[in-house]
């Protein structure tokens, strides 16, 4: 009997050791080479990204100045006004009007869990309800959403318009503030988010305002493939 117990205990211990062995090591075996080179590369890419963004900001500034120069020239006013108005709709010019400001932030309660963290999909869902409620313009952390915008989760980072956005996330929706607020508070798509705010401590705050500014998009909206169709 005793041999049998020892045999079983040995087998179980062996099993446990196997389970432990299958659990990946919490630290890299050689902390110097692979991990550090990745960290260095990330830093290098981030600094390169900052440099390109600065160059884009300068180029956008120059482009806007040239646009103003062209607009101030003797050209048909109707055409100028039309372009101006469409640029606001496209997001190339700021738009200020009544609207709502939404704040989303991670929960500070207890141990972290996916339900306590604001995900890119939460922002996408809030933005979608903003559009459904008739929003005319939306920005996330000052980054205006346009025809080329996307809101993505990369590892634990939220990227908006290929730029890192950190919490708290501030989403501005320009439009009928009553309607937008009502939809944000009641739309079924946002039910999980509202539940997480109530039970997990996630911040989901909606504020109406008479003056909300959706900032302009800092980039280009050139199209390469689409063209006007005459046969539709």
């Amino acid at each position: 009997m005793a041999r049998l117990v020892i045999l079983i205990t040995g087998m179980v211990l062996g099993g446990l050791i196997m389970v432990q062995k299958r659990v990946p090591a919490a630290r890299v075996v050689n902390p110097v080479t692979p991990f550090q080179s990745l960290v260095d590369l990330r830093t290098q890419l981030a600094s390169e990204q900052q440099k390109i963004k600065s160059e884009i900001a300068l180029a956008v500034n120059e482009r806007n100045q040239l646009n103003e120069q062209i607009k101030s020239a003797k050209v048909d006013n109707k055409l100028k006004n039309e372009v101006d108005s469409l640029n606001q709709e496209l997001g190339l010019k700021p738009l200020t009007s009544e609207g709502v400001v939404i704040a989303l932030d991670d929960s500070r309660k207890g141990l972290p869990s996916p339900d306590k963290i604001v995900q890119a999909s939460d922002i996408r869902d809030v933005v979608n309800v903003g559009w459904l409620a008739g929003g005319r313009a939306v920005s996330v952390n000052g980054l205006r959403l346009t025809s080329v915008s996307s809101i993505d989760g990369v590892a634990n980072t939220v990227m908006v318009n290929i730029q890192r956005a950190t919490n708290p996330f501030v989403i501005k929706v320009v439009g009928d503030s009553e309607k937008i607020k009502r939809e944000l508070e009641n739309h079924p798509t946002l039910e999980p988010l509202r539940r997480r705010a109530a039970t997990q401590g996630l911040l989901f705050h909606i504020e109406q305002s008479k003056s909300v500014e959706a900032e302009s998009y800092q980039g280009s909206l050139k199209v390469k493939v689409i063209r006007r169709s005459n046969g539709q």
Partner: protein
Amino acid sequence: MANRFAVIIVVVVLGLLLSLQNKASFALRKALDPQSQEQLSLVVALSFEDNRKLQDQLKQTQEEIGKLKTSATSSRSQRETLQERLNEAELILGEVPVEGEGVEVVFEKGLTTQQAIDLTNALRSIGAEAIGINGKRILWKTGIDEGLLRNSATLQVIGQKSLLAESLKRRGGILEQIGQPNRLSEQDQLKLPSI
């Protein structure tokens, strides 16, 4: 003897539970820790891609500046520049019917609202210039509601067809994440109506 056996079983079960718990908390720590090597590799890979997109954006803006500098010299070309702006804006805002190469994706069983939101978001990220759902043009500011894609859905996406197809089909891409059976085909000519 029976007591010892019971103790051994309890200890073994406890050991197993501890091991499972350790494994689960490691997985959670790994998922939440931005420093983990796997996530870092992903961040690095995506940073390369982001930098490439930003370079493209810079190039486009510089090309615009070049054109604007030329047109700033005469009122005729100033008018042409404004007209060109107007035409482009109308294309992007769906004020006129559009056409061009692209891809078509058919989902026989339809999609949920969240899947449709994620999919259209991903399409913009990979260079879609115009998107249609069941023949209806949708813009970045079109709210997606339940029912739009409930039963079956055909997506028409205008943009560089090979780039769109490769990005959609790639391993871990949006179509794999959605997990719904679909048929994707590259198209030389797609047409979408105005809004």
